[in-house]
């Protein structure tokens, strides 16, 4: 009897080599003249969330009161990262500072895309699925905005930025 995904949920794996594989995938994309690499990377993250959430979910509803905690919990449980989350309510931005990004570690001169694009897709999809499945009329939805800084580009840490909006309501 093979492992189940439920069992994998409770185990850890070293991502080091698979992290490198992401950049080799990016090179393969570039050599095949793929232009929408960012969207494809984010799609990877979104697909991961769609499957992952069937086995684990941090909460049943995400709103502005708990969004910072929910994001920190996802990073901790899924990526084993301790991050800090800032909320910019004026511009409706969520800013994640990740000093030990699971998908970015080394600077690459030949790569113009950060591995943590995947995390933009992963986090936004995770939260959107939770909220869409909730029975609340007013829901918070988030979408990937940009990777502001990344170790892949030579920065000291990764800064992932999301845009949020509130949908539904009165």
């Amino acid at each position: 009897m093979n492992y189940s995904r439920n069992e994998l949920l409770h185990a850890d794996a070293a991502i080091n080599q698979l992290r490198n594989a992401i950049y080799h995938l990016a090179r393969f994309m570039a050599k095949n003249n793929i232009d929408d690499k960012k969207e494809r990377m984010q799609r990877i993250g979104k697909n991961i969330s769609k499957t992952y959430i069937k086995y684990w979910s941090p909460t049943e509803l995400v709103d502005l009161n708990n969004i910072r905690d929910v994001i920190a919990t996802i990073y901790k449980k899924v990526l084993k990262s301790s991050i800090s989350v800032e909320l910019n309510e004026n511009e409706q931005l969520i800013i994640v500072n990740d000093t030990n990004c699971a998908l970015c570690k080394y600077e690459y001169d030949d790569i113009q895309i950060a591995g943590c694009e995947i995390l933009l897709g992963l986090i936004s999809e995770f939260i959107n699925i939770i909220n869409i499945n909730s029975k609340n009329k007013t829901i918070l939805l988030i979408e990937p905005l940009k990777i502001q800084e990344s170790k892949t580009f030579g920065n000291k840490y990764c800064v992932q930025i999301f845009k949020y909006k509130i949908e539904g309501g009165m």
Partner: protein
Amino acid sequence: MGIVQWLMKKISKAFGRNTSSLFYSLIYREILKEINEITKDEELSLLVMREVGKQAAMESCERHSAIFKFMPGSPDKVVDYFELLWVVVFGKELEELDYEEISEENSIYNSYLLKIKHCPICASYGTSPEDTFNISKLGNKTEGMACGLCGMLQGVANFILKVKKNNYRIKIVEQKCMGKGDNCLQLLCKIYDYNEWKKMTQLKLKDKTLSKVILESDIEEEVIQKNKVDLLDQLQESFSLDKLEELIDEPLENIKKRIADIIRDKLNMEPEHFFDYFRNYEEDMIRIIGFLLIHLLNENGRFIEKLLKNETIAKVAGYFFKQLKEMVLLFVPLDVVKDYHNLLIKFLEGLAPNEMVENIKNYSGRDDINFLFEGAQIALEDLGINFSTLKENIWEELNQERENGLLSPEQSIINKTQENFPKIIQLFQEIAMLINEFLTLPIRVSISEGHYGLKAAINSVISEEEGLVGSIKNRFDNIFNNIQALRE
């Protein structure tokens, strides 16, 4: 599993960058899907995935090349360390591995079949709508979902062989895939001669799609590596994990085996034949060991030889050596000496002719020590200590120097002191001897305690898990778990 292999696994796990295994499995699936999105051909996607895995592993290895220099250098040994490779690649313990050796007539190395009961890549594959990579489109002869993992394992294995300057390479191919419905993940590890391997790589470069992931530097790199020689390269010749493992697991048997190999390789004769030359000259053989020990110590920078060029230092060292020779049996308990004598007999059993072993059994441990010191003395004479000019002890030497000086007819305080100097020396000598004798007992006790304590501790181990080793392993487990937790 050997203790060194176990420790390496712990270190690899503790210092790897961990994520949840489910995330690992899903990101792996997504990479394969993205490749397939480009190739639109499932079988070709597997080949590309394998290359991506291989390149990813090689990249990691290049960054930590020093560690891999201490891994075993022959292909069959590398396969022995498959569990360790699995932890390096996947960061997870390998559970339930069956291992089968397949003889290969045209190769000096056999192939290996590895059957793994649990595959993290195929876990629950096909149960989610996102599992869109269509396994059913794969032919029976193609690899399965774990091809990328195979590429990684192969990448690490061949990196080790490359840094160890070995002329063989390993191909790890997935033969059975649980995603395809097989009952296990089955990997075939086949060993190729380097030239044959190079031809295979060049053929792959000609493939239009594969050439987009295979780096041409793959081949050039082999040549560059051969010219690199650093301190680690030299160290790894003597210390690799498999050698350490063997020495720790069965020290005496492995030292015997290694010495037998050296005698066969360097002297082109069987060990028994070699030791037969010393039959009835067993005393000389032990003296030679003492002699060689000193010369071996001197080999490192000829430090002893340079030091003994100074006449005073040579004299002091000579007296120290003489004192040590006389006192050693006062300090080291006879039972301990006897144990080491028995160890020497065990060492020679099987290596030397029976008659020689019987002759050595007639000596005592005390004799062994005397012979060793005699041999060492000859070596020290070669290196600059003239033992024939030394007095009975250092105090007489100091006394002699005073007697050689001329005495002034006028008896000043200084002169009186000089006159009394031999008596002062005599007094110091007696006090020093008294302290020595007082120290004899506690030193004997501590040596005995250390020797028998260690012996008792080792002999009292009931099983690996229950005994000292098990307890130390648990302690290390806790330490590494804490390191891992801290890093997270």
